[in-house]
């Protein structure tokens, strides 16, 4: 059987992943039309390319349906509880860099730290009768981070896109989201808490600890890892 490599199926993440493997002498490409999610691998035998949404790659690694996969640290940590036991980090790929952070309106001059956020949350709940809402799609990571920091009186509200806009629209008071340059945050009059960095993420090549490796797959895995090193 061949070693299955999962790669994001579109956009810059796919292009940059292809370019990264190219440097190691492995040419990945989409076979056939642009709409078809099948791939071709040249420069190494017995590796098959599987094109997937970046968000699905953590789960595919965890179930062992793919042996190797490229996706962000943020998605692996969010989607896989006890991720260390399910996947192993093979190599950071140096692109797709982004920080998961907590941001509040810039006009909150009294809020600079998590400590301030906690105090603001207590006051907010008293004034408005509900908890301070933080919009995010990273529920597990944000909850664990805030629990660990001892922040209370907040609630997470789900936001799968345009999260920065939730504050202006008053569907949330603060946000926890991925940012690379901070440009979108500034444009939406938000600022990052000075101790509000939850996670630094980048595109990473992962190996599944769950997938079964037959002797052929093991051999090609070792060859591949040698060439990537």
């Amino acid at each position, binding site marked *: 059987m061949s070693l299955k490599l999962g790669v994001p199926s579109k956009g810059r993440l796919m292009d940059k992943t292809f370019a990264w493997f190219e440097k190691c002498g492995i040419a990945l490409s989409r076979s056939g039309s642009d709409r078809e999610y099948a791939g071709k691998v040249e420069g190494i035998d017995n590796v098959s390319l599987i094109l997937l949404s970046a968000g699905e790659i953590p789960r595919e690694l965890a179930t062992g349906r793919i042996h190797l996969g490229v996706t962000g640290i943020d998605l692996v940590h969010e989607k896989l*509880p*006890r991720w260390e036991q399910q996947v192993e980090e093979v190599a950071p790929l140096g692109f797709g860099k982004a920080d998961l952070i907590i941001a509040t*309106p*810039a*006009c*909150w*001059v*009294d809020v*600079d*730290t998590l*400590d*301030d956020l*906690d*105090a*603001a949350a*207590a*006051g*907010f709940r008293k*004034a*408005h009768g509900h*908890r*301070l809402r933080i919009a995010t799609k990273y*529920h*597990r990571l944000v*909850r*664990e981070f*805030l*629990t660990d*920091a*001892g*922040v*209370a*009186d*907040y*609630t*997470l509200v789900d936001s799968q896109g345009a999260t920065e806009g939730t*504050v*202006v629209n*008053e569907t949330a*008071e603060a946000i926890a989201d991925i940012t690379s340059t901070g440009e979108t945050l500034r444009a939406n*009059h938000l600022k990052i808490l*000075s101790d509000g960095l939850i996670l630094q993420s980048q595109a990473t090549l992962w190996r599944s600890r769950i997938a079964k490796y037959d002797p052929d797959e093991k051999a090609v895995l070792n060859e591949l890892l040698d060439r990537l090193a």
Partner: protein
Amino acid sequence: MPNRSQIQARAAMMRVRFEAAGAHVVDTPLLQPAGMLLDLYGEDIRARAYVTSDALRGEQMLRPDFTLPVVQMHMSEGAEPARYTYSGEVFRRQEHDPDRANEYIQVGYEVFDREDPAGADAEVFSLFALQLRGLPLRAATGDIGILTAAVAGLKTTDRRKAALMRHLWRPRRFRVLLDRYAGRKPGPEGRDALLDAADPLAIDAPMIGKRRAPEIFERIEALREDRTAPPISDNELAGLETLLNVRETMPFALEQLRDVAVDLPQITPALDRLEARIAALQARGVDVDRLDFEASYGRTSMEYYDGFVFGFYAEGRPDLPPVATGGRYDALTRQLGDGVEIPAIGGVIRPDLMLELEEAAQ
């Protein structure tokens, strides 16, 4: 491993014993409205309970424990004094330890009685000890009421006391606050400049969001007030630190705490209650000279306990959760009782863990 019917048979047997002690059997729905639980526990409960929903009733949770619905039931229709027992499944999400059960049976006993709190404490503890007799367990006890009394009586601003009280159950945050209020840790950079500014809100950013300018200004005023408040004294701080570290058998713990009360006289009424409890436990035949008391015990568990707390742990099995836990939750009845309150104490036992320990012993 014990099977389900063995666990259910054991649960039924234990419930009969609680009935014999005077309790009424009660049951509660498996699906609980999420609002009340979220209100009480906050976002943390989502990490511990399974949430589901439908369009009609909104978010609901698979019963994470019985105490809340039993208290609600008692506050709306119960006569007093009252004793209740129940047994049934509770559900807890497990995201860190796959060996911990996410569904298990609890057998519980709850007492609502205003006449004799020390007697009720001793009644519940000794009934639990009786149910668990013969198992290799270590009992731990504590008293959240001593901590709250210590904080409530600090010679500092009400705002500081409220902030400390709010974080009593988050030891790390509590520590940070305490250090700040004792003047041991400066505020964040730029804080002084902000508080000194004639118009702190005059910045180059539009007002957005539901938290409006008056709220921001109110907090700045609070910070200004706090900056001029004197630090918590070394005496009080040392007293609080000694208190938090008391870990002894019950009579010695009481003795140490009486020494702490020299610096923190506000804990004396709570210590009198501890003394009465020790006497009541002794009267019921509990060997208090070998019963552990930890002043910090119960600080990281459910937030509703506010007095006597206890737990039974399997000796040499740190991998197992406690076999039984319980405590006093007077404030919860006040919160759920619409102005009415009644002193209440209760706890739960896990028959599955009892059977597992019995099997291991054979």
